[in-house]
């Protein structure tokens, strides 16, 4: 029993990171129909910049905030320089552009931060908390709490604020949104800033547990993408459920079946789900208009 609980703890922790990445995917996808494979690099940058700023003498909270702000700025720059000029390009081209951005950021990070593995201290110490025979790190609580807080904040933003509704309107129908006076370019900018910021936050929260290096981004991107697709691309609730599911499936597979095949399990489940629900768990069914 305590064993199961232990696996659940680790699954929920990793799942929270995946959920944050998946939320990032969702926000950008909704605003622009682009699946941003560079999403994982935001996670890497969040961890890396925090590490560098902290090592340079900044207090940890300040280092974390500066990492999130800088990464959000980078997200905006990426939108302006690589995504907006390619509007209307086919899906394959957009995949190549965002993967190109991902490789570019990785290359830059390798030069700036080196190839070593980095980390910084956990926020509330390293003493494990005992719960019913299992243990959980305080940092895990930060990660889980972070994911839930971001989700609630996003939910409030999209349902309660005028700006959030404008974003939703743009994702439903870009042209119509422009006609009612929504500045869709601003919505795009905002979405990339939000998405990059959330990715960076995930990196800040997770790095004390997972450590970081210039090349960790792509794995986060693939898992987050998988989570978002599992939940149904474009649906924030789906992203949250999808992300946590992937984390749990991985942890349970690693615990009970085979740790070497934990990455495979998530994709087997995705293939199975898409077989029965081609739009993911919460995706909308689209009807061709002819």
């Amino acid at each position: 029993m305590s064993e199961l609980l232990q696996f659940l703890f680790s699954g929920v922790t990793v799942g929270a990171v995946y959920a944050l990445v998946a939320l990032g995917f969702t926000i950008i996808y909704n605003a622009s129909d682009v699946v941003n494979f560079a999403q994982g690099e935001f996670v890497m940058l969040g961890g890396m910049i925090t590490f560098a700023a902290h090592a340079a003498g900044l207090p940890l909270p300040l280092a974390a905030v500066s990492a999130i702000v800088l990464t959000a700025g980078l997200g905006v720059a990426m939108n302006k320089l690589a995504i907006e000029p390619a509007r209307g390009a086919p899906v394959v081209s957009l995949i190549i552009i965002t993967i190109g951005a991902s490789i570019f950021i990785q290359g830059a990070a390798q030069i700036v931060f080196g190839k070593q593995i980095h980390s910084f201290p956990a926020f509330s110490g390293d003493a494990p908390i005992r719960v019913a025979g299992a243990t959980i790190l305080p940092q895990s609580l930060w990660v889980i709490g972070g994911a839930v807080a971001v989700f609630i904040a996003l939910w409030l933003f999209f349902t309660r604020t005028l700006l959030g509704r404008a974003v939703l309107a743009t994702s439903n129908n870009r042209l119509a949104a422009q006609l009612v006076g929504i500045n869709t370019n601003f919505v795009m900018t905002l979405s990339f800033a939000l998405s990059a910021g959330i990715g960076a936050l995930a990196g800040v929260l997770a790095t004390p547990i997972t450590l970081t290096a210039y090349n960790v981004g792509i794995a986060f991107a693939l898992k987050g993408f998988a989570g978002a697709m599992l939940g149904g691309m474009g649906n924030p609730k789906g992203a949250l459920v999808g992300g946590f599911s992937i984390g749990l499936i991985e942890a349970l597979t690693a615990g009970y079946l085979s740790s070497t095949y934990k990455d495979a399990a998530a994709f087997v489940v995705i293939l199975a789900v898409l077989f029965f629900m081609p739009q993911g768990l919460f995706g909308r069914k689209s009807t061709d208009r002819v």
Partner: protein
Amino acid sequence: MMKLTPKSATLIVLVALIALSPLLFPSNFYYRVGALIFVNAIAVTGIVILTGYAGQVSLGHAGFAGIGAYACALAPVHLGVPPALAVVLGAVLSGVLAYLVGRPILRLHGYYLGVATLGFGILVTMVLTNERALTGGPDGIEVPDLGLRGLLGDLGLSLSNGQFWYFFSGLCMLIGAWIALNLYDSPTGRALRALHGSEVAARTVGIDVARLKLRAFVISAVYASVSGSLLALQNRFVTPDVAGFMHSIEMVTMAVLGGVGSVLGAIFGAAILTLLPQVLTVFAEYEQMVLGLVMILVMIFLREGLLPSILKKLRGKDE
């Protein structure tokens, strides 16, 4: 004068390039680079059929390259078949697997198809990495000699290893291009291009969309498999990276970068992207950044791909 069809024009250009390029090679090393270009071009020709003709995206085609590669490493040792037959075995296995996997996942569209193929590729990589007893794990495994070079030597045609693989891969690429060009103008190719243009309209003219997508998927999987086999045989060694996500992306990028709509364009893309790292070694640590930048810039400014854009420019000047 007889008018050249695009098909014969493409084949003539390719033959000329294969035959004449060695005249410009500063050293024997370039035979090796050339062979690598041809091997990549074979996989990329498969992507042209799947993505260029039929409009379907795969982010996991390296999985099939992995199957082709490991077939050449394992079948001769465990089944006692000659390496040449192992290539065929790998291609058949890839084709069958593509058929089984493709049936359920080709119903998916766009990014959903992307994640499903991605999952397939990752599963293959995982098996190759983790079944150490069979595959040698992440460190890779040795591949036996194809034996064809020795045979040619006995017949009095002695080639260096680099030369042999250059011409042999070149020949395979030519055959692959010829088949893909045949397909383009054939009823099947037309149906594939039609469903790319409009699935609804394709259905109403009687095209069984699911079945045709599956055919394109199987054919392109065989291309990827043969490419993987040749890569393994040429290197005499293979690691699970051959099936990895980055290799899948590389295939798609080569095709789209050069111009996924035409065989020649895609092969051009394969050449550029294979040569780029050789050139970029000059930039050493900036290699990755430049590669990423090239991917972004080409997709933004030369949307149809390098070759079509260049040709358009040239034609524009003529007029």
